[in-house]
C-alpha cells in the first residue's frame, strides 16, 4: 500500500469515528424521548448523518480508485447538479438541442479534458467555446422569445455545475514542486473537508450565538456564525496541513479562504432558490435536498482554491 493510500485510510477511519460519535449522539437523544414522541430536529439530524455516511463511503472508494474514480464521481455529481439547475431555468423548445448538447457533449468533454490534464482547454472550454457556440445553436432554431434570459441562464448553469465543479478533480492536475503527483487526491479531500466542516460549524454557531443576519429574510446565515465557521475551518486547515503542500499557515489561510468563498456562494444559491420559489434544489439526498444544496459551497470554493494554489505554489 502506498503512503497516500495509508493516509486516505487513516482519514477515513478518523471521519468514520466522527460520524460514529454523531450517530451515537443522535441515538441517545432519540432514546431519551418518551414513547410515541418524535422530535423533527433529531430526525432531520439523523437523516443527514445517514446521508453523510453514504457520501463518505462513496468518496473514500473514489479516492482509493485514484484519478479515474474521482473524475467519474464528480462527472456524475455534475450531471445531477446540472439536472437540478436546468429543471428550474427558463427555456423554450428552441433550446432543446443546446440543452441536450450541454448534458451529453459539454459535460463529458469537460471531464475528459480534466482527465487528460489539458489545462489550456479545461480552463477555457466552457467560458469561451461553449459560451459562444451554444447560443448559436439556440438562435438557429429561430425563437427569440426571452432569448437573452434563456441563454444566460443556460450558460450560468453550465458554468456553475460543470465548469466550477470540475475544478475539484482538476486539483489533481496541479504541479507543485516537492508535492508528489499521487497526493492530489488528498488535496481534494482537504478542500471538501474544510469547506463542509466550516459550513457545519457556521450552522452550529449561527444557531447558538448568531444575531445579525447577513441577508435578512433570505438566508439564516449570520455574520457571527460565519466568522466562527471560517475561523474554525482555518484552524482545522492548519491541523490538516500535512495533506497539502502549503505549510501550516498557508493551509490555514487557504482553508479560511475556501470556507469564506463557499459561504458567500451559499448566499448566492439562496437568492436563486428564493427567486424560483423553491426550498431545495431537489430531493435526491435524504435530509439535505439536492446535490446543489449539498455541494454549493464546494462548487464556489473550488475554482478559487484551484487558481490561488496555482498562483502561489504552482
Amino acid at each position, binding site marked *: 500500500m502506498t503512503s497516500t493510500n495509508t493516509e486516505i485510510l487513516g482519514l477515513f477511519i478518523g471521519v468514520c469515528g466522527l460520524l460514529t460519535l454523531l450517530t451515537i449522539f443522535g441515538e441517545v437523544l432519540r432514546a431519551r424521548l418518551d414513547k410515541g414522541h418524535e422530535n423533527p430536529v433529531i430526525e432531520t439530524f439523523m437523516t443527514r448523518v445517514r446521508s453523510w455516511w453514504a457520501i463518505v463511503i462513496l468518496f473514500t472508494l473514489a479516492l482509493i480508485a485514484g484519478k479515474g474514480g474521482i473524475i467519474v464521481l464528480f462527472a456524475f455529481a455534475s450531471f445531477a447538479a446540472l*439536472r437540478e439547475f436546468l429543471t428550474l431555468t*427558463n427555456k423554450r423548445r428552441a433550446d*432543446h438541442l443546446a440543452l441536450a448538447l450541454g*448534458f451529453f457533449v459539454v459535460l463529458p468533454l469537460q471531464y475528459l479534458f480534466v482527465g487528460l490534464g489539458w489545462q489550456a482547454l479545461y480552463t477555457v472550454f466552457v467560458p469561451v467555446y461553449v459560451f459562444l457556440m451554444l447560443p448559436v445553436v439556440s438562435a438557429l432554431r429561430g425563437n427569440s422569445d*426571452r432569448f437573452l*434570459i434563456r441563454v444566460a441562464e443556460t450558460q450560468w448553469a453550465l458554468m456553475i455545475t460543470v465548469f466550477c465543479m470540475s475544478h475539484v478533480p482538476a486539483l489533481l492536475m496541479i504541479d507543485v514542486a516537492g508535492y508528489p503527483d499521487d497526493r492530489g487526491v488528498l488535496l481534494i479531500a482537504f478542500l471538501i473537508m474544510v469547506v463542509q466542516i466550516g459550513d457545519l460549524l457556521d450552522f452550529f454557531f449561527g444557531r447558538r450565538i448568531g444575531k445579525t443576519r447577513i441577508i435578512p429574510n433570505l438566508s439564516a446565515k449570520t455574520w457571527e456564525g460565519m466568522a466562527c465557521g471560517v475561523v474554525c475551518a482555518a484552524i482545522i486547515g492548519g491541523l490538516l496541513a500535512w495533506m497539502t503542500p502549503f505549510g501550516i499557515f498557508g493551509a490555514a489561510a487557504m482553508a479560511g479562504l475556501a470556507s469564506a468563498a463557499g459561504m458567500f456562494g451559499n448566499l448566492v444559491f439562496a437568492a436563486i432558490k428564493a427567486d424560483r*420559489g423553491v426550498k431545495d434544489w*431537489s*430531493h435526491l439526498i435524504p435530509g439535505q435536498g439536492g446535490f446543489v444544496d449539498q455541494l454549493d459551497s464546494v462548487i464556489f470554493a473550488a475554482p478559487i482554491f484551484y487558481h490561488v494554489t496555482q498562483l502561489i505554489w504552482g
Partner: protein
Amino acid sequence: MSLPRKFAARFVGLAIALFARFITAVRADWQGIEPINKQRVYFANHVSNADMPMIWSCMPPNIRRDVRPVAAADYWLKNKLRAFVGPEVFNCVLVDRRPEARDANHDPMQNILDALDDGSSLIIFPEGNRNMTDDPLLPFKSGLYNMGKARPDVDLVPTWIANVTEIMPKGEVIPLPLICTVTFGAPIHVATDESKDDFLKRASGALVGLAPKDVRL
C-alpha cells in the same frame, strides 16, 4: 404468457423504471394519499407518450404490480415491440378509441370495469388525447365519470405529472434529463346526485390544483 416471456416482461419493466429514474430522477410526491397498495384509479394529465411510463416508474413495486394503465389499442398494437411492451410489460388495459370499433364484441368501458373487478388499480388519462395546447388541461371525456359512477367505492386519485413537455417536446429525439415530479392528490368520488358535467369539472379542478406554481417567464 409463457414463463420466459413473463420473465422478459418483468426484466424490461425493471429496466424501464431504472432508466426513467436515472435520466429524470422521477419522484412521487404523495400529497393526498399514502403510497399503499389500495385499489385506485389514478387519473393524470397527458402531454407526452412518456407520461404513462413516468407515473408507472415512480410507483413503489408493490403498487406497480397491481396497476394497469388504460391505453389505446391502435397505438400499442401497431408493431410487435409495442405489443410486447404495452400489454405485457405495462400490463395495459387496451381500449379501442375508434367509434367504428365499438360493437357487441368490444365495449371499452366493459374492459375497464372488468379490470377493476379483478382488483387492479388503473392509470387513465381522462383528456383522451395528448394535450398540445397551452391550456393546462383539455376537457375531460366522460369515462372517468362512468367508472366513478359504476364502481363508487374505488378512490379516484388526481395525478399531476410535471415537466414532461420540457423533457421530451413533441418532435424531439433526445430526452433531456430534467427532474420530473408526479404529484398524487387527495382522492375524489362521484357524489350521489352530482351531474356528469359538475363532476368532470370538479375532477379537472382537483387535478390542475396539483400543478406546481411556475414562476418562470
